[in-house]
């Protein structure tokens, strides 16, 4: 029963996000503020449905949520949606979420169809609440820097339109450059602390589960390197010491590195860090 509820909630969340994206698209084309309002409502609704799905899943399979790809995907998408909504409302950037929502919705649909294992997968010594903290904060942190990559892309796109003097920007204005820049900075300063907490909780869990904090595993090494990279990036952006085009490019490259790390982790290695 709860399995069914789980799948239904995932499906409705995906649908909601699709609609939100479509309405946002119409908002940009027709400059109709009603569309923008309903788009936000639908996006928020989608996130609530995702949260409900997680709750249903936890109630159904009383095991840790990270023991299957479906779960991991769901939690990541849940974090990404939350950050999108945060960016939209805190920074007033209604175009932040909609380009990515279809992708997230597809992820949710995929999660609907992936198998959910009924028995516990993870060896007992690896069970711990710290796992939850670690993975959740890492996902939130990576979502934040992911969105900063998106705002960086928007910045570069808008800059190119302005340089090329394409007058279409008069009819379909993107957010202003200074705003995209400010949002990018804000996201990095949000993401870096989250990554810090994520790494620390990861070390604590490792100590509990394996007796030692550090393991020479490629994904862990890459994560620490990325953490250092984003730390430096955040420091340079603080106090408006570095603005405009170059930080935008760096934000994009940084997140590409994150994606490669994840993909590498899934495809290449064979350790426990693979989901």
């Amino acid at each position: 029963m709860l399995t069914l509820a789980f799948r239904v909630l995932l499906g409705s969340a995906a649908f909601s996000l699709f609609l939100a994206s479509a309405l946002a698209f119409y908002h940009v084309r027709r400059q109709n503020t009603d569309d923008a309002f309903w788009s936000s409502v639908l996006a928020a609704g989608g996130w609530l449905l995702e949260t409900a799905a997680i709750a249903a899943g936890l109630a159904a399979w009383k095991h840790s949520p990270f023991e299957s790809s479906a779960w991991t995907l769901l939690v990541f998408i849940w974090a990404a949606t939350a950050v999108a909504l945060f960016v939209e409302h805190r920074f007033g950037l209604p175009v932040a979420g909609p380009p990515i929502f279809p992708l997230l919705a597809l992820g949710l649909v995929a999660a609907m169809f992936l198998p959910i294992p009924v028995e516990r997968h993870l060896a007992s010594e690896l069970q711990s609440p710290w796992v939850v903290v670690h993975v959740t904060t890492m996902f939130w942190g990576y979502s934040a820097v992911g969105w900063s990559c998106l705002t960086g892309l928007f910045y570069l796109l808008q800059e190119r339109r302005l340089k090329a003097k394409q007058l279409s920007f008069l009819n379909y204005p993107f957010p202003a450059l200074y705003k995209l820049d400010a949002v990018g900075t804000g996201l990095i300063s949000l993401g870096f602390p989250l990554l810090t907490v994520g790494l620390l909780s990861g070390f604590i869990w490792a100590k509990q589960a394996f007796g030692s904090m550090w393991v020479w595993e490629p994904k862990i090494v890459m994560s620490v390197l990325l953490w250092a990279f984003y730390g430096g990036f955040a420091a340079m952006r603080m106090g408006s010491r570095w603005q405009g085009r170059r930080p935008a490019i760096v934000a994009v490259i940084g997140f590409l590195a994150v994606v490669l790390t994840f993909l590498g982790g899934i495809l290449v290695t064979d350790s426990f860090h693979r989901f």
Partner: protein
Amino acid sequence: MHLALVGLNHKSAPIEVREGLAFPASLWPSHSSELRNRANLAEVLILTTCNRTEVYAVAARPEDGMAAIQSYLEQIAGQYLAKVGECRTHPGFLHKHFYRFWDMDVARHAFRVAAGLDSMILGEPQILGQLRAAFDVARGAQTTGVFLNQLFRHSIEVGKRVRATTSIGSGAASISQAAVELARKMFGELTDKRVLLVGAGKMGELAAKNLAAHGAATVYVANRTWERAREIAGTFHGQAVSFESLDDRLVECDVVISSTGAPHFVIDQKMVRRAMRARRGRALFFIDIAVPRDIDPAIHGLEGAFLYNIDDLHAVVQANLEQRAAEIGRVEAILDQELARFFDWLLERKVAPLIADFRQRAERIRRDEVERALRGQPGMDEKAKAAVEAVSAALVNKLLHGPTMMLKEWARSGKALGSAELDLAMRLFSGAVAEEVVSELGNGVRELGATREESETSTSFSLLRRRVGEGSAC
């Protein structure tokens, strides 16, 4: 009574001709009264702007009235041209420049003008104010009456409605407006943005003034002459700054508008490179309105710097004008609606005197009969007398109701009144007033046979239009 219009505009006459008739508003009253007497007009209103001179009138015989207006205007133009040494003014020299309308075509033209469809810049707002001014002056001089009052009141309403419900008047249509539109679209809101105006060019000043009005936090004004900077800054709460401090301002501001008369570059690459370094990459927008250009075009290639020149602003204006042109269809649809409303009013107005006359005569008859009856009954008490009055009045009203409604219905529907019906109308409503109104109705709808095929719209008002001469500016 017919509406009539004689005029010329920027499409029908070149500036050398128009300037002969561009007399100021102070002369409107005197010319109006003179014209009213000479041309035997019931009402007259004069409108002159830099792009048009028009005389709206109401006359019993429109052809005569229009000919008289035309010769009067030619006389004025001739006098002006003689003063400036041009002597090629023979009678009728303006004939090919005038357009002439009467009846509903006058209303259509007035509405088009009010909507901005006849303006040099489509949808411009100034014409509405100019129409209002002409109306006020004419009313003050008491040269208008019922018809022109209603026409102009309605036209101004139409102008407002069209601008509120369509985009015929929106989007920047001038260089300074385009500069403001560009800045606003780049930034979204201007509330904490700083603008720098360099130079004293008119368009730059207008743009800066507009940006200040839209909420820009600070507008700096820099000029080689301190006094001039202060003067300009004073007109819109700007802040005068010294020309030497330009470098610092470039670091501080977000938008730079330049319109000096200098023949060389006022802002060059070196300055901007220095400024961009100090700004650490923060974007800076330049709008160069000057010709010759004030700002080195190579700046557009620098990272973080964006330079728009007057050609780009022209392109913005062009794009906007094209969008306005796309709205013409919607505007024409609204004009058709409003013209139908005006037509209804006009017809009601035309039969009103007839109905009033008819009622008056009926009332006279009633009075006479009641008096005669009461005289023959000296002992009647007040209540009985009152009853007699009441009965007779009610009787008369009820009997008149039918024919009155019928007349209004005929007028409104513009149906073909055959000669039998016209005859009936004449007999029912007999009297001098009846003759005039009924014949007008008859004339109007006799055109039905001829013009119904020509007119594309089947609304009844098109049946009452006639046009004299060539050269319609519609």
